[in-house]
């Protein structure tokens, strides 16, 4: 095992090796630091690193493993990259904005605290687009984050730094948040796993905790790691009225899915997936069939008005929340964040009400349909990825009469923010012709997280990713 192999160990494997004293948390952290120094110049996934602090913590973790009979915590010594929008007390938290470039958090998000309490070691913060309001990770403050599989393309967004660092082998676990696809899109573009838990499963910061589009969740390289991390961060908390009781645990051993009924759609009724996305999705469908599932295509009666509804919802709450900042510091903002903030300021209550109606209408199809199936499959994105530095054109949305803004047209994720109680896992389904990974969304019935993980674990076994040296990105280190 060379140092790169160590970097690509899953948390589950690393913990096993720690316990058997075949690997020390210090060795893992050192390998990750070495890899980071090598590939970060090309990828730019991290905004800040804390290598000295992380090594000191890794030494303590190592001591815990060495001490006979000492109980070790669930993520003891595991490197963790935390998205640069999550407050961690005493640490900088910028959300990719020049306005917040010197902002120091004075509290720690509940789910982050849970990760620390479980022994995870934060060695880096990951890049986001400004205020996480785009599916592409580029900002004036931190520059452009690039896809480890093809540097010309984005690793997705908004949790782009998190997903890119997992794919590049510069972290073992990473956090994400998803208000329109911001966990699943980067997972798909970067060829890793991302879980959007159902609304209320993972505690949120008050305020946004009441926007049901909004979720914190895990990103990892394997389904088991995703479950491991989800089990740490999930569960009700006294600070968040939306959190649901009781806590749900994803079992470590997941049963077979033989005989399951599965529905799928290539387009959710109104997206236009590219040929490579269609082919990879259909190959995934065949994989499920080969596992003894009955898989049927479902005609989804949704149209672009669903996109308008999602856009109106996002503008009304999320966009409007940026309005005052735009008024005061608009000159410091990126074009896309500024356009989104202005959009939010102009949003009317009736648009929001109509958006809520539309979400209800969508579920009136999806809910009954799901009574026939154990899980539902569709692509995560309609093309492998957007370019690393596309032209953002949010502002054209109202004027050119289109219901779906171009920036959303490739994100097949937001319908499940409208249907936010449905858990959704994105797993890699293959590669596009440009070498960029594609993703498959596995959607569950409301709050049925376990079925989603069962399907994903079975799929991973048949169709693994990043599982050996040949299946990792090779990042050129000299120009």
């Amino acid at each position, binding site marked *: 095992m060379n140092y790169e192999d160590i970097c690509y160990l899953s948390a589950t494997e690393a913990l096993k090796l720690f316990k058997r004293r075949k690997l020390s948390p210090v060795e893992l952290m050192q390998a990750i630091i070495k890899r980071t120094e090598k590939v970060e110049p090309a990828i730019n996934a991290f905004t800040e690193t804390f290598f000295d602090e992380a090594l000191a913590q890794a030494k303590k973790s190592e001591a815990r493993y060495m001490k006979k009979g000492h109980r070790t915590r669930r993520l003891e010594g595991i490197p963790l990259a935390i998205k640069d929008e999550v407050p961690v007390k005493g640490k900088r938290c910028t959300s990719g904005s020049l306005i917040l470039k010197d902002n120091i958090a004075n509290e720690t998000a509940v789910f982050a605290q849970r990760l620390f309490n479980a022994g995870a070691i934060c060695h880096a913060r990951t890049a986001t687009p400004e205020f996480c309001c785009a599916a592409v990770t580029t900002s004036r403050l931190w520059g452009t984050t690039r896809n480890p599989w093809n540097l*010309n393309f984005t690793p997705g967004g908004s949790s782009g730094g998190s997903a890119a660092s997992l794919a590049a082998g510069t972290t073992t676990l990473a956090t994400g948040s998803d208000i329109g696809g911001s966990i699943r899109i980067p997972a798909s573009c970067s060829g890793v796993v991302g879980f959007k838990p159902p609304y209320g499963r993972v505690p949120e910061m008050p305020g946004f905790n009441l926007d049901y589009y909004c979720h914190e969740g895990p990103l990892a390289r394997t389904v088991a790691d995703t479950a491991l991390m989800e089990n740490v961060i999930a569960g009700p908390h006294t600070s968040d009225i939306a959190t649901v009781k009781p806590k749900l645990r994803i079992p470590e051993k997941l049963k077979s899915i033989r005989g399951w009924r599965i529905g799928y759609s290539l387009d959710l009724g109104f997206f236009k997936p590219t040929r490579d996305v269609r082919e990879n999705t259909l190959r995934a469908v065949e994989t499920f069939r080969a596992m003894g599932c009955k898989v049927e295509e479902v005609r989804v009666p949704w149209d672009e008005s669903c996109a308008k509804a999602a856009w109106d919802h996002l503008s009304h709450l999320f966009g409007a929340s940026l309005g005052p900042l735009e008024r005061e510091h608009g000159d410091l903002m990126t074009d896309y964040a500024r356009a989104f903030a202005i959009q939010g300021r102009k949003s009317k209550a009736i648009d929001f009400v109509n958006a809520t109606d539309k979400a209800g209408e969508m579920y009136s199809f999806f809910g009954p349909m799901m009574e026939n199936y154990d899980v539902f499959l569709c692509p995560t994105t309609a093309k492998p990825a957007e370019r690393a530095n596309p032209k953002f054109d949010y502002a054209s949305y109202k004027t050119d009469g289109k219901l779906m803004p171009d920036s959303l047209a490739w994100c097949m994720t937001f319908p499940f923010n409208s249907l936010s109680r449905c858990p959704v896992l994105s797993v890699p389904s293959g590669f596009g012709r440009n*070498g960029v990974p594609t993703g498959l969304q596995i959607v569950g019935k409301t709050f049925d997280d376990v079925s989603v993980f069962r399907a994903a674990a079975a799929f991973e076994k048949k169709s693994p990713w990043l599982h050996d040296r040949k299946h990792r990105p*090779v990042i050129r280190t000299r120009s």
Partner: protein
Amino acid sequence: MADGFYQFDGVELAALIARGETTATELLDASLARAALLNPILNAITVMAEDAARSSITAGLPDGPMTGVPFLLKDLGAEAVALPTTNGSTLFKDKIHTYDSEIYLRIKAAGLVTFGRTASPEFGIGPVTEASANGAPTRNPWNTEHTSGGSSGGAAAAVAAGIVPVAHGSDGGGSVRIPASSCGLVGFKPTRARLPDGPVAGEGWAGMAIDGFLTRSLRDTAVLLDATAGPDLGVPYWPPPMDEDYVTAMGQTPRTLKIAYLTRSFSGDKVHDECRRAVENTAATLDGLGHHVDEFKGSIDILAMMQAWTNIVACGTALNVHAKSKDPTVYEPQLDGVTRGAIKLAEGVSGADYLKAINDVHAFGRQMAGHLANIDVLLTPTLAEPPAIVGRFKPVNEDFLDYRMGPDGVFAYSPFTAAFNASGQPAVSLPLHWTDNDLPVGVHLAASFGDDSLLMNLAAQLETAMPWREKQLSLIRKLAS
């Protein structure tokens, strides 16, 4: 099963052998059977060395990246004791070598089983393979009325027809890339001096010529270049070392490249619509892959380079002939008209003229380096037309200058390839386009001197984005029946 072998590339065949699913002997038999069937039509193979191939298997093949894969050397240079050459000339008929060339030693070490040599025009000059010494013209397996290209035309015909998965070639003015373009194959010309010329010669045609391979898959090219690249003992010049090997470069994460394309020749002449379309489609695909693609804005002066190239090659040809005989009454009746013309031209080139030609070639390299300072890759068609009808470039023209530089000459037909022999840059022809009549049209990409890995990386992106394997297999399956 034997029929099935023709569809595999070299890497796959070597894997089949390694897994015990076939043997080197079985593959050799399959290649010989297919050669017996197709060579009478194509005239791709001029020297057979079946016994040598069988005894190399019996003696035990070295453990290499292509162990047991059937292979053909070009019937030009590449000295090998077991494989006589004719160099496409009756003057050299059945020339026996007393030593193995370094390139052949490396080919042997890769585990390849060489069972013959492929047709070349006389001394490798020309974009077609129609030397009278070969008895009949070499024909294109896609359409036998057309040429398979030249000078590695026999190699290209054999690989495209599925006789062998990969074959050796050499390229001093486009002689790997022109046949690759003509037969729907990959032809990669590495940076000057990347492959060995020893143990006797230091360089061919003043450094413009280099060996190479004709392959169907890009990975076969990468594996063969990795197996053969690197300086040999006493080499006079070294290229800049590569950051990584060709195979690694293929799989490397792409970065955004500045790519400039040309749909006219360097001197502004129109190319065939199919060639223009091939470039435009490729440019659009590259744009879709995230690269910055723009029309080439600069101007490249090629006249002096073409004149210099012609003089150097004429002198090189004279050198080849004089090695055998200095008596015109002996050699002239045995040569093709074009060869006689080249020697006549060479007689008028003084020592000072020759050094001026080298200066002009080097000045051209500096000019190209200047252009490549602003862009990463130059994209053009490989040829200005789809492959020509057999006979159009028949080597009978005794005016070598006219044959090369005349209005219907070789440079008008192949206006791009020789530029990169002069500059020494890495360049590749990829099979990215076919005409409505199913004639292959290659697309040509060139990178900066020494940057073979960037070129290989981009070629791999194109192979994924515009896969050509099925198209190649359609021909192989058609020919099998």
